[in-house]
């Protein structure tokens, strides 16, 4: 595989362009979630008691397990890049597969979490018997934002798993050598962003 594209005069410039493009993309992803975090802050300022009650109703144990899983998966992703730099492709592939496995477990736990909420009559958009039983309280903003934010995040986890899977496949076929690792690095950067977002979602919706 020709690693240097025609329109770059050196591998260094190509790698820099790829990383710059990736970080700009990550910045736009951050702004996508910025709207949801801002809405959370605004509604929490308006309905502090309802949000505190919402946090008490959330599945703290499952959310915390998912936090640990994502943190471990991020460590695996960073170690994979490290192994690739040392030309240990086999270990890098194994670590990337472990990262994806963590992502799958995260989604399974998320599914269980949503199932628990649905069983209690808590559905997106303030629908369900939970809201009917608390008609006078303003619980809708918390739960609508909860489903929007965690749902969008779960979608990003799913996309991250796919991106890592394609990258692992290409890596296994020998497409990226130790001097051409920025495609793998960029894929792991996306995964780290997913982790970063969750680091803030967890305390806001599950802890405090």
């Amino acid at each position, binding site marked *: 595989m020709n690693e240097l594209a025609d329109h770059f005069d*050196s*591998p*260094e*410039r190509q*790698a*820099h362009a790829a*990383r*710059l493009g990736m*970080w*700009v993309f*990550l*910045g*736009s992803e*951050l*702004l996508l979630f*910025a*709207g949801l*975090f*801002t809405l959370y*802050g*605004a*509604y929490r*300022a*308006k309905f502090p008691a309802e949000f505190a009650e919402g946090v008490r109703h959330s599945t*703290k144990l499952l959310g*915390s397990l998912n*936090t*640990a899983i994502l*943190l*471990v998966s*991020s*460590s695996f*992703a*960073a*170690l994979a*890049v*490290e192994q690739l*730099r*040392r030309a240990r492709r086999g270990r890098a592939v194994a670590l990337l597969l472990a990262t994806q496995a963590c992502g799958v477990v995260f989604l399974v736990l998320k599914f269980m979490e949503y199932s628990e909420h649905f069983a209690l009559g808590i559905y997106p958009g303030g629908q369900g018997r939970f809201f009917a039983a608390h008609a006078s309280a303003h619980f809708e903003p918390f739960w609508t934002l909860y489903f929007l934010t965690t749902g969008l995040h779960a979608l990003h986890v799913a996309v991250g798993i796919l991106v890592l899977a394609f990258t692992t496949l290409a890596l296994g076929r020998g497409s990226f050598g*130790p*001097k*051409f*690792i*920025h495609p793998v*690095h960029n894929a*792991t*950067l996306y995964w*780290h962003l997913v*982790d*970063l977002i969750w*680091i*803030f979602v*967890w*305390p*806001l919706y*599950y*802890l*405090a």
Partner: protein
Amino acid sequence: MAPLLPGVGDADSGAERAHARKLALAGLALLALAGLSFGLSYLRLAAWALPIALLIAVAKASLVLSCFMEFWREAVSVRLAALTALVMLLLLATFTIADVATRERPPLLPPEQAALTPLTPTGALPP
């Protein structure tokens, strides 16, 4: 010109091992901080609960950014692009939340008029 990626082509295996150890330690520190957040959530911290949890989250995010994403080893142009997004997020969140949190309070009144205008329990001006 910077190398392809920081650390690529390092011949010193000792330095490589040290970097791998640093990543593993960062992972353990992240888990420890998550454990701390989890433990603190069971204490009655009242109004301090959210600021403390967010402070720990910022510490964890800094670890991920610096150790796993190697943010501070990137070129200035890359850092600038990412920091711009962060600044926009902070501006958006700060001013929106400040607006909502202070919307029902009365406008600034002269002291003599404020003394004559009792507020309702919610802080709003009487109708």
